[in-house]
C-alpha cells in the first residue's frame, strides 16, 4: 500500500489534545505514521481545511432485522426520495437507507466506524449479511441482553460469574461487540403486552426489577473488562415526566468504576438521552429537564451519553423497546410492525413525522441541543440522532450546524408554529453557546472511540492508529458567516482517507476499501453450569438448534477481533 501525506491542515485530535494546530499527517500501509517515516508520499493539500480522524458513531440502527423491516414496509420512503445512482450500487431510501446508501453516505460525511445499536442475537446471521453489504464503513453490533431469559435468571440469583460466562458465549456466538440493554425487563413484559414503567417495576414471572438488571449488567461488564461499557436505553422512554427515570437509572451506576485495558472511563453509556429528559405529566405540559440531567452527568465521570437529536424530518422509529412502539402507534395511528424474539428481545417499528408545526416535536428538538450545550465535557457527550429514530444520520451535519451556530438555531426556530410554547417549555432560547470544531471532533470521533474502548484504533490521528482521516473544507481561522456552509462541509467532506486509501474526494465516493466487522472475543473459564443452561434452553425453548444459532465462520465478513482475557 502507498504512502500519503496530508499537508498544512488544521488538525483537531482531541485524543492527543491537538486543537487546530497546523500539522502534516503521514500515512503508510494503512496506518498513521510520523511524517519522517515516509519516503515518497502522494500529497493531499489540506491548507485552510480542518483535519480530523474518521468519524465514529456510537449508536445508530443501520443493519439487522428491524432496520430491514423499516425498509421493507415503507416503499413511500423511497418514492421520489432516492438519489440517482452515483456509485457502484443504487442508493435507495431516505429515513431508512439501503445498506449501500448507508455506507456511501457515512463515508461522504467522513465517518469510518458505525456501531449498530441493537442486534437481536437470534438474528445475528442477518446482521452480518447486511454488514457485508454495507460498503466502506467498519461495523460493530451490540447484542441485546436486558430482556434475555438467561440474563434475567442469572441476575435474579446474583450469579454475576455465570452471567459473565453466558455473555462471553453470546458475544462469540453472534460475533457481537458489547452489552446493549433496551428497556430492561419492559421488553420481556411486552411478551404479554405489558411494560416495566420504572426501574422498580418487576418483570412478570421473572420477578426481577429493571434496576437489578442494570446493576447486574454493569457488574457483568466490568467483571469481563469489555472494551465498551454497558449501553443503556432507559425504561419509560419517550414519556412526559421520564427524566426522573433517567436520573434513577444514572444513579444505579454510582459506586462503579471502569475496569478495562481499553482506556474507557465510563461504566454506563446512556443512549439518546433526549428521549429521557422530559418533564411534565402529559403531552400538554411536557417540558425540558435537561438542566437536571446534565447537572448530574457533568458531576459524574463514570457516565457517557449521546443526545439522540430530533432533526424535524419524516422518519421511521425502530427500537427493541416493543411497548414504546406500540404506544407510539396509538398516538399517530400509522402502520406498526413488531417482532418479539424468543427468549431475547422484541422490536417495534412505526413511521413518525417530527414537524416544526408540532409543539412536542419542537420541544424535543430543543432538548437534544440543550443536552450538548449544557455539557461540560464533550468527550462524554456524543452526537447521534439515534438513527433513524429521531432523524436520519445524514442530518448529523445539520446537528453540528445547530450546535456551532446560535444564528442557525434561531433560523430554524423561526419556522416553529409553537415558538412561544417551545421557548416557554425549554431553555434553548437562553443559550448562546456555540461549539467549536475541537468540541465537534470530541463529540463525533475522539469521545465515541474512547467510550467504545477502541481509541487505540479509531477516533484519533496518533502514529500507529488506522489511517482514517476526514478533511472538511472549513477554516477554523475563517469560519463561514453562513452557517449552512458548515452543514455543507460536514455533509460532503473534502476528503476521506480510509485505511490509507482516498475514499471520498469533494464529497464523492471514489474508492471502496474493504470494510471490517469488529467484534469482541472474551476468554472466560469453562463454566459447566452455563453450558448446561444453554443446552437446556435450546433443547426446550428455542426454535433453532444451538449449532445453527452460533454464527458460522463463513458468515462473518472480514473480521477484526478484539480479544479480552478475563480468566486472569
Amino acid at each position, binding site marked *: 500500500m502507498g504512502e500519503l501525506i496530508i499537508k498544512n491542515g488544521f488538525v483537531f485530535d482531541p485524543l492527543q489534545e491537538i486543537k487546530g494546530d497546523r500539522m502534516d499527517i503521514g500515512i503508510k500501509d494503512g496506518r498513521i505514521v510520523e511524517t519522517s517515516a515516509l519516503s515518497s508520499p502522494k500529497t493531499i493539500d489540506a491548507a485552510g481545511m480542518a483535519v480530523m480522524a474518521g468519524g465514529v458513531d456510537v449508536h445508530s440502527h443501520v443493519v439487522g432485522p428491524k432496520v430491514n423491516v423499516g425498509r421493507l414496509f415503507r416503499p413511500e420512503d*423511497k418514492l421520489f426520495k432516492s438519489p440517482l445512482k452515483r456509485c457502484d450500487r443504487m442508493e435507495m431510501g431516505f429515513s431508512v*437507507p439501503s445498506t449501500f446508501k448507508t455506507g456511501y453516505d457515512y463515508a461522504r460525511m467522513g465517518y469510518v466506524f458505525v456501531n449498530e445499536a441493537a442486534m437481536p442475537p437470534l438474528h*445475528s446471521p442477518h446482521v452480518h449479511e447486511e454488514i457485508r453489504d454495507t460498503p466502506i464503513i467498519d461495523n460493530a453490533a451490540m447484542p441485546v441482553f436486558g430482556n434475555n431469559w438467561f440474563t434475567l435468571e442469572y441476575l435474579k440469583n446474583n450469579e454475576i460469574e455465570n452471567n459473565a460466562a453466558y455473555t462471553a458465549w453470546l458475544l462469540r456466538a453472534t460475533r457481537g461487540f458489547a452489552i446493549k440493554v433496551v428497556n430492561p425487563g419492559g421488553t420481556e413484559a411486552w411478551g404479554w403486552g405489558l411494560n416495566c414503567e420504572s426501574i422498580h417495576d418487576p418483570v412478570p414471572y421473572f420477578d426481577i426489577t429493571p434496576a437489578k438488571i442494570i446493576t447486574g449488567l454493569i457488574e457483568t461488564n466490568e467483571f469481563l473488562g469489555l472494551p465498551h461499557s454497558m449501553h443503556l436505553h432507559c425504561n419509560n422512554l419517550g414519556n412526559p415526566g421520564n427524566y426522573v427515570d433517567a436520573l434513577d437509572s444514572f444513579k444505579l451506576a454510582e459506586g462503579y468504576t471502569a475496569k478495562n485495558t481499553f482506556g474507557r472511563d465510563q461504566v454506563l453509556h446512556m443512549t439518546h438521552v433526549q428521549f429521557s429528559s422530559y418533564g411534565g405529566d402529559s403531552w400538554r405540559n411536557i417540558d425540558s429537564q435537561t438542566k437536571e440531567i446534565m447537572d448530574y452527568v457533568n458531576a459524574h465521570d463514570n457516565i457517557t451519553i449521546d443526545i439522540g437529536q430530533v432533526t424535524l424530518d419524516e422518519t421511521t422509529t425502530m427500537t427493541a423497546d416493543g411497548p414504546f412502539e406500540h404506544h407510539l402507534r396509538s398516538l399517530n395511528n400509522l402502520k406498526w410492525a413488531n417482532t*418479539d424474539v424468543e427468549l431475547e428481545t422484541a422490536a417495534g417499528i412505526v413511521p413518525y413525522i417530527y414537524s416544526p408545526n408540532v409543539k412536542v416535536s419542537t420541544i424535543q428538538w430543543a432538548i437534544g441541543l440543550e443536552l450538548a450545550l449544557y455539557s461540560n465535557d464533550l468527550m462524554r457527550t456524543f452526537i447521534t440522532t439515534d438513527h433513524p429514530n429521531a432523524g436520519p444520520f445524514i442530518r448529523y451535519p445539520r446537528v453540528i450546524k445547530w450546535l456551532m451556530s446560535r444564528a442557525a438555531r434561531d433560523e430554524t426556530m423561526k419556522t416553529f408554529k409553537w415558538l412561544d410554547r417551545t421557548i416557554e417549555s425549554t431553555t434553548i432560547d437562553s443559550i448562546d453557546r456555540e461549539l467549536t470544531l475541537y468540541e465537534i471532533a470530541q463529540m463525533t470521533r475522539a469521545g465515541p472511540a474512547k467510550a467504545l474502548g477502541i481509541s487505540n484504533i479509531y477516533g484519533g490521528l496518533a502514529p500507529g492508529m488506522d489511517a482514517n482521516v476526514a478533511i472538511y473544507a472549513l477554516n477554523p481561522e475563517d469560519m463561514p458567516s453562513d452557517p449552512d456552509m458548515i452543514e455543507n462541509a460536514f455533509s460532503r467532506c473534502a476528503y476521506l482517507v480510509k485505511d490509507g486509501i482516498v475514499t471520498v474526494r469533494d464529497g464523492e465516493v471514489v474508492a471502496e476499501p474493504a470494510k471490517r466487522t469488529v467484534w469482541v472475543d472474551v476468554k472466560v473459564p469453562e463454566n459447566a453450569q452455563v453450558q448446561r443452561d444453554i443446552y437446556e434452553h435450546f433443547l426446550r425453548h428455542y426454535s*433453532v*438448534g444451538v449449532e445453527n444459532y452460533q*454464527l458460522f465462520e463463513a*458468515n462473518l465478513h472480514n473480521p477484526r477481533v478484539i480479544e479480552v482475557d478475563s480468566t486472569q
Partner: protein
Amino acid sequence: MAKKIENVGCPFCGVCCDDLVVTVSDDGKKILEVENSCIIGSTVFHRAMSERHTLPRLRQPDGTFKEISYDEAIDYTAKVLHNAKKPLIYGFGSTNCEGMAAAAKVAEQAGAVLDNCASICHGSSFLAIFDNGYPSCTLGEVKNRADVIVYWGANPAHAHPRHMSRYSIFPRGFFTGKGHKGRKIIVIDPRHTDTAQVADIHLQVQQGHDYDLFDAFRTVVRGHDIPDVVAGVKKEQIIEAVDIMKKARFGTIFYGMGLCHSDGRNHNVDIAISLTRDLNDFTKWTIMAMRGHYNITGPGAVWSWQYGFPYCLDLTKRDIAHMNPGETSSVDLAMREEVDAFINIGTDAAAHFPIEPVKRLRKHPWITIDPHPNMATEISDLHIPVGIVGVEVPGIVYRMDNVPIQYRNVIEPPEGVPSDEELFERIYERLCELEAEDAAREPAKAAPEGARAGE
C-alpha cells in the same frame, strides 16, 4: 462406515426444520437416510441425485437439447440480458441468500426486473404490510407463550407438515407446559381441512368473503352488533371466537393462501393485521404469514436491504429502483407483454404460473436455472443446472418468521456444477465485459436533455 450429519436444515417449506439428521455414504456421495423430516423433506434429499444434468443444455432448431459448456451458457445468458430491453429475472423460492444477492447485482447491471415467487404467493402480504404494518413474532414465542392459535386460510397439515408440532399447537414451551391441552385452536377455512380436524372451532367461511368476516370480528371486538350471518358464519360463532381471542394471554394468527389468492388479495391480510392491532389493545396478539418455500422469505430480506423493496423490483432505469406490484409483478408483466426475456431461477414458472402468462413469456428467450428438470426447463431455450441449496450448497435462508437459519450441505454438487451464487457472479463478469465492449465500440453519446421526473 456411513456418516451422520446433524442439525441439517430442510430445503422444502417455510418451517425450515433445522433438526434433520442425514446419513451419507462413506465417500460422501450418497444420501442413505433422512431422520426427523416430514415425507416431503425426506423426498427432497432422496431425490437429490436422480435426474441430474451436469452440463447446461441449449435448445436446438429441431427442438432437442444439446449439452454446452458453462462458459457458453454464461455467455448466452449475459447476451440475452444485455440485448433485451426489459428482461425479467424471476424465482428464488429455492436458493440461498448469497445467490439472491448475486442475482440482484446482475439485475442491476443488466437493467432487469427482479422478482421472486412471493409475486404469486405472499406478495399480497407485502402489500398489506406496506399499508398496515406487521405485528409479529418469532416462532419460538408462539411455542413458549401462545394459548390461542388461529389458522386462517392456511392448511399446515398439508403445506407445512411440521408447523403444528414444532411451533404452534403441540409443543410444550416455557409458559406452555401443557402443550396442546393448554391451547385453543381456531381454524377458519371454507374446507374442513386436515388442519381443521385438530381445531376446537372451525368456522367454514364462504370462499372469497374472508374480508367481510374479518370486518365482523373487528366490529364485535369494538362492541358493536353484526348481522346474524356473515360470510356463511353465524353471529354466535363469531362472538364466541372473538371472546376466546380477547381472553387469550398470547395469541397468533397464522394465515395462508386462502387470504392471498382470493378476491381482495392484500386487503384480506390488511384487515387481518388491523384485527391483530385491535386485539393488542386488550392482550397480546401477533400475526404471521405461512411462507411457502424454505427461503422465499430470503429475497424479501436481501432485496429490502439492498434496494428497500422486497419483490417486483424494476431496475431497468439502472440508477433508481421502482416497485409497484400490478405493474412490475411477473404475471402482470407477462400478461401485458411488457418484458422481452425471461430468466427462471430456483422455481418452476411454467408449472406455477397460469398457462397464459407462460405462453406469452415463451415468445421471448427463456432461460431456466435449476438443479433438476422441470416444466420450465422443458420449454426453455437454455437450462443451466446448479447445485441444490441445503443438500449440496450451504448458505443462509430466512424462515417464515424472518429468522435467518444457517444451512449446511450434506454432499458436494456433481463435479463442475456451480452454485447459484457462483453462476450469477460469472454472468455478472461477462455482462460487464459486454458493456465494456459496447462502450469501446461507440463513443459515449451526449445524454438527451430533459427533466428526469422522479422514477
